[in-house]
């Protein structure tokens, strides 16, 4: 995509500091022991990520990366075992709820996009007060919706509160989402919508 990217070993803190943006990918850190993302969130490398987040560096957490960001308190809320407690892997329709972040700038508000999910612990949860705060500050980035764009129970794959699929931090430079944008980067694979998220980050850091 015209932008150099490197895979950084979690102990290679020096190289991490040189980066203009950070993506914490999906997977299973520390075997998902304790709670998904809980142990990774307390490793020294996350102190560096926290510093970078404070400096305004875009940080994107995908799936397990989202879990790591909530456990690190860089994002609010928690991700819990799916309502139907099993692994789900399927395409989802998402509605873009805001477009003022590097990750969402390439979308229109209200636009429906297709990105797949693959997780067992993806049920977003937050307290009533927390949800009010997220809604009031426009920090909910993506919701699971049906083909008509309605965030109803049948479109909610995992029981997430308010059909939330992705959220932002207050300064909108940290985003976490359960769907996998990297798996929606080529029309041959079913969708290019995820690619636009990455394009948004690149455009932001080139400015």
């Amino acid at each position: 995509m015209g932008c150099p990217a490197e895979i950084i070993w979690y102990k290679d803190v020096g190289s991490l500091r040189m980066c203009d943006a950070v993506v914490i990918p999906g997977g299973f850190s520390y075997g998902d022991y304790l709670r998904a993302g809980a142990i990774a969130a307390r490793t020294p490398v996350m102190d560096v990520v926290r510093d970078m987040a404070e400096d305004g560096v875009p940080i994107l957490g995908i799936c397990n990366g989202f879990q790591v960001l909530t456990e690190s308190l860089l994002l609010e809320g928690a991700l819990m075992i799916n309502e139907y407690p099993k692994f789900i892997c399927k395409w989802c329709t998402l509605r873009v709820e805001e477009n003022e972040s590097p990750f969402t700038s390439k979308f229109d508000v209200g636009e429906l996009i297709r990105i797949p999910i693959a997780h067992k612990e993806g049920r977003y949860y937050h307290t009533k007060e927390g949800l009010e705060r997220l809604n009031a500050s426009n920090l909910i980035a993506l919701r699971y919706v049906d083909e008509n764009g309605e965030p109803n129970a049948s479109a909610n794959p995992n029981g997430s509160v308010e059909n939330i699929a992705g959220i932002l931090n207050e300064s909108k430079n940290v985003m976490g989402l359960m769907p996998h944008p990297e798996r929606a980067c080529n029309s041959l694979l079913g969708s290019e919508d995820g690619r636009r998220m990455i394009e948004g980050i690149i455009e932001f850091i080139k400015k």
Partner: protein
Amino acid sequence: MRYLADVTIKLKKGVRDPEGMTITRALRNLGFSVEEVSSAKKYYVLFEAEDDEEAENKIEEMCRKLLSNPIIHDYSYTLEVKG
């Protein structure tokens, strides 16, 4: 002194517990009249502390910093001197 903490991590009231709900249904299918099952996690932590007060402070901190997630969990523990 060595202390053994028996830590229980439970979901806060009002937080949905799909595992507990699934087990409730399974028990009912077996013919048991069950009102509710709640799931919880247990950790046994063996550690050193000078006295009871220090042991309590340490286990509190472990619960707060790692073992529980304050948004969804309540924690409780008992402490036992292991000599």
